[in-house]
C-alpha cells in the first residue's frame, strides 16, 4: 500500500451556521486529486454529517482524513458528552437536537443513518462523559 495523503482539521464548536468547512475543503482536495464524482459525493456527505454532529452535539472536535488510492478513511474525534445508546442513536428519526438547531434544518435524526449508508465501513467508539470517535471508510471502486 502506498503512503496515504493525510488532512487534519480542527472543527470549531461555536459556529454552526458556517459549520462544514472541513468537509468542503476535503471535497475540493478530492476533486483536485481526480476521484470520481460519486466517491466524492459519498465522502462529502458522510463527513459533513459527522462534522455537523460534532458541532451541534459535542462542542466541536477534530477531523482526520487519510486518502489512499483505493479508499478514503475519515476519523472524527470529539470530547463531547458521548452517545449513551448507540443503537438508539443509529435509528432513523432519533434526535436530541435543540430547537435552535432544528430551526436551521438539522435534527431529523438522519445523520448517523446517512453516514452508515454512504460508507462501506463505519465504527463508533463512544464513552459517556469522555467523547466519541467515529471511523468511516469509503472504498473507491465499490459502486
Amino acid at each position: 500500500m502506498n503512503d496515504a495523503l493525510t488532512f487534519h482539521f480542527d472543527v470549531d464548536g461555536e459556529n454552526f451556521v458556517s459549520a462544514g468547512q472541513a468537509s468542503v475543503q476535503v471535497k475540493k482536495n478530492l476533486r483536485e486529486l481526480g476521484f470520481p464524482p460519486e466517491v466524492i459525493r459519498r465522502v462529502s456527505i458522510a463527513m459533513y454529517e459527522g462534522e455537523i454532529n460534532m458541532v451541534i452535539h459535542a462542542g466541536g472536535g477534530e477531523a482526520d482524513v487519510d486518502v489512499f488510492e483505493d479508499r478514503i478513511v475519515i476519523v472524527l474525534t470529539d470530547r463531547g458528552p458521548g452517545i449513551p445508546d448507540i443503537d438508539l442513536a443509529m435509528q432513523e428519526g432519533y434526535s436530541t437536537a435543540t430547537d435552535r438547531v432544528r430551526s436551521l434544518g438539522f435534527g431529523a435524526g438522519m445523520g448517523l443513518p446517512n453516514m452508515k449508508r454512504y460508507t462501506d465501513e463505519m465504527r463508533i467508539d463512544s464513552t459517556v462523559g469522555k467523547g466519541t470517535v467515529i471511523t468511516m471508510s469509503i472504498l473507491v471502486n465499490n459502486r
Partner: protein
Amino acid sequence: MRVSELIDKYGMKALSLPDPDREIAGGYCGDLLSWVMGRAQQDNAWITIMSNMNVVAVASLSDVSCVILAEGVTLEQGIVDTARGKDVNVLSSEKSAFEIAALLAPDV
C-alpha cells in the same frame, strides 16, 4: 433541461448562477437537511424554503444542479456570495414547492 432555462420558462429569479449550463436530472423537495443529503441525487433540482448558510453547503456537498427557493424566499447577500464562490446555482420562485415540482416534472 439546463438550469438557465428555468429563468425564462418559469419566471424564476437567479440569485446565484455560476454554472448556468448545468443539466437538471430529476428533483427533490425537502427542508430537513439530512433528508436531503440522504435522498436527493446528484444533478437533482432541490426545492426548499430553507435559506440559511447550511443550504449552500448541503447543495455543494450533495452535488445537486441547483437550489430553487419556493414561496418567494430569498438569501442574504453574504449567503449569495458564498453560493457563487462554491459554484452553487440558486434561484427563487414565488410559487409553492408543490407548484414548482409539478411544473418541472415533465421537463426533468
